[in-house]
């Protein structure tokens, strides 16, 4: 059984009487431990797919089974619990809370998970060690560089030990070198057995993942257009790790 089973999912918006099909009959399986990228131009529906699978939004049609739970019928409270326990998000703009310290930001998912103060602290520091930022735990996000902030966000995504990590353009707001480091971090997490879904419009980034899914006009493209996406120009450093 796949970790995520997406069956005939559609998302339809109504804007001023006009029907917009952000997702159109998408079916997809994601296995546990997979490192997968969802690629597509902006407006293609890739973010919508991520939001629906990530329990931030609900589909108009279709079913999604995530780790054995049918999430299209779940209540908002159940969805919140799934987001808290089974999913970790990494966003393009980091989305750390500016008034909290790094440590408090990483602790936050556990606060909502109802974990006691002492354990929260220990686990948050462990997660920060994983991204080599334990020494910055007392800083505010604004005192860190973009790459560091994104690593804090990754630590926050990891701290509840989720089944699946969604990264939505995680390097989109970073310079190429820093972005490279973040991607290496994801790859490292992948080799540790984590399921990671990387959402990006950049074929070069998508190239680091073993499996790539291209979304066009709300549908999964039959075949990834490798020449157009430039996937044959894989950088050596990246290529050496990808299978």
């Amino acid at each position, binding site marked *: 059984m796949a970790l995520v089973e997406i069956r005939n999912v559609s998302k339809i918006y109504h804007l001023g009487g006009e029907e917009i099909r952000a997702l159109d009959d998408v079916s997809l399986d994601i296995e546990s431990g997979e490192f997968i990228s969802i690629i597509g131009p902006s407006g293609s529906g890739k973010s919508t797919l991520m939001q629906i699978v990530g329990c931030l939004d609900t589909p108009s049609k279709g079913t999604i089974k995530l780790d054995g739970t049918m999430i299209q019928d779940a209540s908002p*409270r159940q969805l919140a619990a799934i987001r808290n326990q089974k999913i970790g998000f990494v966003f393009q703009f980091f989305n750390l809370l500016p008034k909290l310290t790094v440590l408090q930001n990483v602790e936050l998912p556990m606060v909502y998970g109802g974990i006691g103060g002492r354990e929260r602290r220990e686990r948050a520091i462990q997660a920060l060690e994983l991204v080599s930022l334990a020494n910055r735990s007392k800083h505010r996000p604004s005192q860190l560089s973009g790459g560091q902030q994104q690593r804090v966000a990754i630590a926050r995504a990891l701290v509840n030990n989720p089944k699946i990590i969604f990264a939505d353009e995680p390097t989109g707001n970073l310079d190429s070198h820093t972005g490279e480091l973040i991607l290496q971090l994801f790859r490292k997490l992948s080799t540790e057995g984590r399921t990671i879904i990387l959402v990006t419009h950049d074929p070069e980034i998508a190239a680091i993942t073993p499996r790539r899914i291209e979304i066009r006009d709300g549908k999964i493209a039959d075949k990834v257009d490798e020449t157009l996406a430039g996937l044959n120009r894989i950088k050596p450093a990246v290529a050496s790790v990808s299978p």
Partner: protein
Amino acid sequence: MNFWNAIVVGLKEIWAHKFRSLLTMLGIILGVSSLVAMSALVKGMETGAKEALVAIGGLQKIRIEPGEVPVEQRHLQDQAPGLTMNDVYALQASAPLVTKVSPEYRVPRPTIAANGKTFRPWVCSGAWPVVLELFEHEIAYGRMFNEIDEEQGRSVCVIGTNVRDELFGSPTQAGREIIPLGETLLINGQAFTIIGMFKHYETEQERKERELGLVQDTPARGGRRGRGNFVFRLKNGSIYIPLSTATIKFSNVTPQRGGGAASAAASAVGDFGAVQLTSIEVKIDDVSLMNASIQQVRNVLFSTHKGIEDFSFRTQEEWADNIETFVRNARVSGGTIAAISLLVGGIGIMNIMLASISGRVREIGIRKAIGATTENVFTQVLVESVVIAVIGGLTGLVAAYGLVHLLGSLSPTENEPIVTVTALGVAFLSSVSIGIVAGLIPAFKAAKLSPMVALRYE
């Protein structure tokens, strides 16, 4: 997310916007402090009024006064006897619900003179010694006139401290207590010897102030326009003389039975049944039997007055009712005003909370994305609103003390405002409930934000 966390987050949010939070709280602070101050003022007045009510004899005292003959008895007016000593004796004999009877004859237009000074007292009356108990008088120096003084019609008097102040100088000016016992004063030209002086009557507040030495004596203090409740001024400005002496010296009733000059006085003492008394004060045992007691007195008086109702009753009940009515009205009107200012404070909180959440849409989205439930967000916003209200409420309670002191010093009444625990509790609880109510709409609005929409929000 537990409750404590929500409070801490709320406090941080308030601290992050100090000035804005202060302005928001100001509404609650003013509301709470005006509620407390209003209640304290009313309580002070109520206490003062009740103190005065007790000082004048309490609810158990009924005053019988000559009254207008009712229309249907007008043709009998010339037979109306008025209040006389016969009524007093009849009441003593036949009205068991009445425990004390005290006749009073007021000296008409009294002018007191002594020591080269003159003075018009509030009360100058002939009475029986029992008058002490009916008016809650207490002798501080000397003695009250007694039955022998009464029997012999002696020219003796007992004075209140204000009479002393006016004629012999006040102790605060002299720096020592002045006790004019044995001195002579003239009442409408008739000489009387002072044999006793009442204690100085004052409100609780005056007593405290005097004991603490807070009040430096002002020239007005000894005079009629000095501070102090009217009842206490009245009592301090009293002179009592034996009833017999008063009727002999100041009424136009001449002794009925003739005889030698030597026996004239004695026979007059025995026979002033015809003297028109100013009033009869009676004291009853049980206030709950007020109506029965009045009816009993009325029955007795009907018999002595041949059924002519030329008398009326005045009880303190009316006064007590007036106090109640006044207090209720003051509470309602003051409470309404304070409630309106609390409401304004609540609207301020709601406004600021709405502004606060629209500035934090993204934060709410992030929190939801990492697992905050609708309830978590709802609680957080609500707790913030309540925290503002609670801090405002507590500050308001502190501010109330200042406001009460300010009002106390500006107050037109002599009664010091009294801050009660109940008032503090009510004010505080209303601030908390205002905080909850004001937070509901913003909390609901924040809680129903979709995480996806919130995250996309810039």
